[in-house]
């Protein structure tokens, strides 16, 4: 398997609002916004809660557990920097908390429905919240 840390690929384009997410990711943690008003988590981070439009929310540590909703083995990546890693898997991870995030899946043969766990991984020189089979 290709060492993902050596890839020359586009990293996150964080802004002040999203910086805590990527800072936590760099420490191997997954944090997601949780609305104080409607008590619901959401992802990705936004200025206001997409459920109720409240502007007060907190970062909460997620369990890092999830389930694979769908995946693709990418043979011909959309960005040339990913070519050395192909085929690799990306997938939709339904977090145990509810929200869905797209992530890198560390598995040569994923199956829809499989249980996943957070697997912080150096991708292109930054530790990102990837997932692997639990």
């Amino acid at each position, binding site marked *: 398997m290709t060492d993902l840390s050596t890839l020359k690929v*586009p990293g*996150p384009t964080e802004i002040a609002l999203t910086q805590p997410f990527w800072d936590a990711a760099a420490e191997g943690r997954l944090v997601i916004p949780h609305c104080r008003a409607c008590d619901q988590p959401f992802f990705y981070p936004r200025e206001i809660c997409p459920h109720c439009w409240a502007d007060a929310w907190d970062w909460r540590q997620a369990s890092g557990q999830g389930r694979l909703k769908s995946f693709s083995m*990418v*043979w011909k990546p959309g960005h040339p920097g990913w070519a050395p*890693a192909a085929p690799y898997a990306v997938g939709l991870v339904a977090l145990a908390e509810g929200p869905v*995030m797209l992530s890198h899946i560390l598995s040569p043969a994923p199956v829809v429905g499989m249980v996943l766990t957070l697997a912080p991984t150096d991708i292109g020189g*930054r530790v990102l919240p990837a997932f692997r089979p639990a």
Partner: protein
Amino acid sequence: MRPQAALIGVGSLAPQRRTEGASTLGMLARAAKAALDDSGLEKSAIDGLLVGPQVGETPQHVPATVAEYLGLQPVMGNVVDLGGASGPGMIWRAAAAIQAGMCETVLCVIGNHRNPEAPRSPNRNPIREFDVPFGASGANISYALLKQAHMARYGSTDEDFALIAHWARANAQRMPEAIFHGQPASVDEVLASPLVASPLHLFEIVMPVAGAEAVIVTSAARAKGRRAAYLLGAGEKITHRAVSQAPDLTSGPLKPSMTRAFAQSGLGVERMSLLSLYDCYTIMVATTLEDSGLCPPGQFGAFMRAHDFGPEGDWPLNTHGGQLGYGQPDLAGGMTHVTEAVRQLRGSAEGRQIKDAEFALVTGNGATMSEAVALVLGAEP
């Protein structure tokens, strides 16, 4: 059933793989001229202008730039930015503007030149921040996720999906301009084409091309005595942008859009002479067939095996080859489903005419099954 507006002229530029040196404005002008010639109207009749976004060449002031280039001074102008649903989205907006008394005859025009060495996307939005860093760039992966979800939920097979690509290629053999004219593909050939992003094979994915499409929409009153197709119903819905935010992976916003369009028209899907369904990928047709009610959820494969989808068949589908057979002229790809429906309903689909074509369902789809527009069009009553 009251005709909302009339589509009285269509113009299409043949798809091309490369257009070095061409400008998008120039291509839009060629398509507009063809549509005007087809309508039989004078240029001075055009008083409304709807255009698509133009990534790169004209990032802002698009209606003014296009109007100036064409020597028009419209009293209504706007950009319709709904990805592959932009073309169909223009048609009902044109009708609405006409019905509101803001203008009488609208040029809807969309297209793009193609230079494969164009710079990469300058996006700085959530999809760029939260999807791209994990290795998910581009639409292929998003639609692969949708296809995989359908297969996992319903047990649909690669062969089921390959039938959609096979029929697109088959119909493209009746369309000399199609990029895959002369290149039919059997189900086995679709399945033997390389995996791009599993479970999507190369032949299940549109070929990007340059092109432009134009439609002239006017009031039913002004269309009297001219060969026209009529807008009978429309529906639209936007649910998300990134596939990770999709409320449902196996049913999309076209479902409520089609429901609204059919309700407005007073017609059911069984009355359609043509299914002109947006087909960026095979999965999009599969989901649309199921969302339309033509077959139960998960059952599109049985539907594909049970019918003939050619112009003489019992369910003509994308008689221009669809974008899978014709090529995808960027954002104009969605408008090819409109122009083909108009040609069929006016009886001018040379070499592929559906006999007594009466009604057509047109769908447009943008982003990752995110932006949807459905139209019901009818022939001269």
